[in-house]
């Protein structure tokens, strides 16, 4: 499974992009500082709103800040929000969805009610209210809020899957052996959900990155923190689109799109592995079949 996972080019490309951004988030700011000697916060009034050039590879913004340094610094902020939000959201989905599906009955009724409640909550207004209530919304707070309001869809999917697995014969057989509930959940049921959980996690990550960008765009975020969302927001505030300062908002937008594409690619690849039906019609095997038909087989 672990090696089959990497044979798909979609998975490899997707994981490559994600790895690049993770490395960028971890080491990028340090590299930019030490190699290029740039500080994302430094205002250089000599070069305001410069297009990309030799000095500033991605140009500078209205405040004379280097866009490349900002994108790299923003990677740290955005990836941090994405990962933390996804971890919180996925963990809550597991803790609420799996027991609901496995135990059924009253446990299910209670947990499912909670899930449905969160599913129909108007999340964005609520986030606005909560963010307003918690004064000084740091980037961690934002991530936690995104995770806390974003688990319900995943919990529903997990509940359905856990329900179907809990009724499979092998779980019945282990229960008949006298295996206890918690062990049944973690040793028998949960391992079958890893693929689904991984895919949910990636989805949640795209969601969190986007949500952060969206919230920043609406002005709900720590304006002193640098993330792709805050970059786009300040570009918007300075009417960068109207003034044709495309190098200000395109790089962060592109980064967000790239992260989304990478997560989607990994998900497609995982889907193909989990569901062989998507694989049989792959052009490679169809081509091979045609070649076989022409040459009349290996004989």
């Amino acid at each position, binding site marked *: 499974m672990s090696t089959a996972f990497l044979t798909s080019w979609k998975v490899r490309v997707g994981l490559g992009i994600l790895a690049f951004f993770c490395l960028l988030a971890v080491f990028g700011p340090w590299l930019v500082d030490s190699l290029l000697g740039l500080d994302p916060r430094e205002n250089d009034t000599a070069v305001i709103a410069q297009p990309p050039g030799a000095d500033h590879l991605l140009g500078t913004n209205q405040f004379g800040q280097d866009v490349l340094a900002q994108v790299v610094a923003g990677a740290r902020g955005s990836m941090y929000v994405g990962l933390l939000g996804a971890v919180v959201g996925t963990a809550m989905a597991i803790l609420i969805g799996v027991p609901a599906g496995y135990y059924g009955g009253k446990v299910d009724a209670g947990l499912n009610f909670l899930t449905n409640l969160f599913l129909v909550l108007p999340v964005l207004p609520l986030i606005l209210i909560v963010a307003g209530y918690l004064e000084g919304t740091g980037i961690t707070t934002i991530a936690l809020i995104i995770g806390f309001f974003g688990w319900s869809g995943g919990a529903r999917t997990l509940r359905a899957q856990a329900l179907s697995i809990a009724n499979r014969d092998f779980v019945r057989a282990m229960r008949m*052996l006298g295996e206890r509930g918690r062990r049944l959940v973690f040793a028998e049921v949960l391992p079958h959900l890893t693929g689904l959980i991984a895919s949910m996690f990636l989805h949640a990550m795209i969601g969190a990155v986007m949500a952060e960008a969206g919230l920043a765009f609406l002005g709900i975020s720590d304006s002193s923190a640098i993330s792709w969302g805050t970059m786009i927001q300040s570009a918007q505030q300075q009417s960068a689109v109207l003034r044709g300062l495309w190098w200000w908002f395109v790089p962060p937008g592109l980064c967000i799109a790239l992260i989304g594409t990478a997560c989607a690619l990994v998900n497609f690849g995982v889907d193909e592995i989990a569901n062989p039906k998507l694989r049989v019609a792959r052009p490679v095997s169809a081509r091979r079949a045609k070649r076989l038909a022409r040459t009349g087989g290996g004989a």
Partner: protein
Amino acid sequence: MSTVLRDQAPEADTPEYVLEARDVSKHFTVRGPLGGTTVVRAVEDATVRLRPGQILALVGESGSGKTTLARMLARFHEPTRGEIVLRGERVSGNRRAQRAYHSEVQLIFQDPFGSLNPLHRVRYNLDRALCLHQPHLTAKGRETRIAELLERVSLTPAADYTTKFPHELSGGQRQRVVIARALAVEPKVLLGDEPISMLDVSIRLEMLNLLKGLRTEDGLALLYITHDIASARYLCDEIAVMYAGQMVESGPKEDVIASPQHPYTKLLIESSPDPERGVGDRDKLFAGADELGEPPSLIDPPTGCRFHPRCPFAMPECAVEAPPRTELGGGHWAKCWLHAKGRAGELAGTTHAAATVARREKLQGAS
């Protein structure tokens, strides 16, 4: 009739039967789309008794309630009425009792591909069973016991199999692992829910031979649930036939198969392929067999005898009152009005198809 059975039941302190289901019924309530409920009467007043070292076959078509009965005996379902009795003691529903019960009674599932977790090796399955039921064993003791168990089910050399995942094994080998896992508990009773029906034809007999060996060598009692009456005859001592949730006939296998005393048993036997009788005389063999009817719905079963709408021997009383149980000697009994009315002789002289044709002609002649 049920009182007759209770009178015969032995005293609780000297249990003759290791496992009994006494007059158990199971009704499932199904909620309709508009909130209305319907009741499916899956099993109605069924009685099963297993002596130590006995193999009883429960034969019936799908929907006859045989699997529901097995699942009640495996404690997956609580009976709606009636009781499950282990060694003369009524089994209660709490969790602790359930665990004790499962250390004596184990179920072999139909699907060997579904009853082993694909993510666990063979060793894990057996090791968990031993951990839970033989807690006195050390890790080393468990290891030797695993080897013994695998050899018991003819997976030799055992070392080749302990580290295998289910998908690396064939269907027959998986079912052997499932049996070994059940044996790790050291049960007294095995329930086999169509344990061979998903296996390749050529390896089914070896599986039956293995189950037979567990009875003769280890003294296990076995309830063998099947739709295949020929395999039931091969494996078991007694046969019980179920139709539409009720038991219609039971007795020593050769008596039941050679001279079925219920029209449904007769139909079932005549419908089962048997090349010995068949080859060559095909037209005669299939004559009249294209209108045999179908089992009734269990939501609204026929009144009286549930077989009467399909029965070529049906009488007016069949539609009104359920037939009494008639003892035919040697432990053979049937529930059919033919016996009460002295018409049982008619069963032996004809086939179901021929009797149906004769009856139709008679009805047409009368009208």
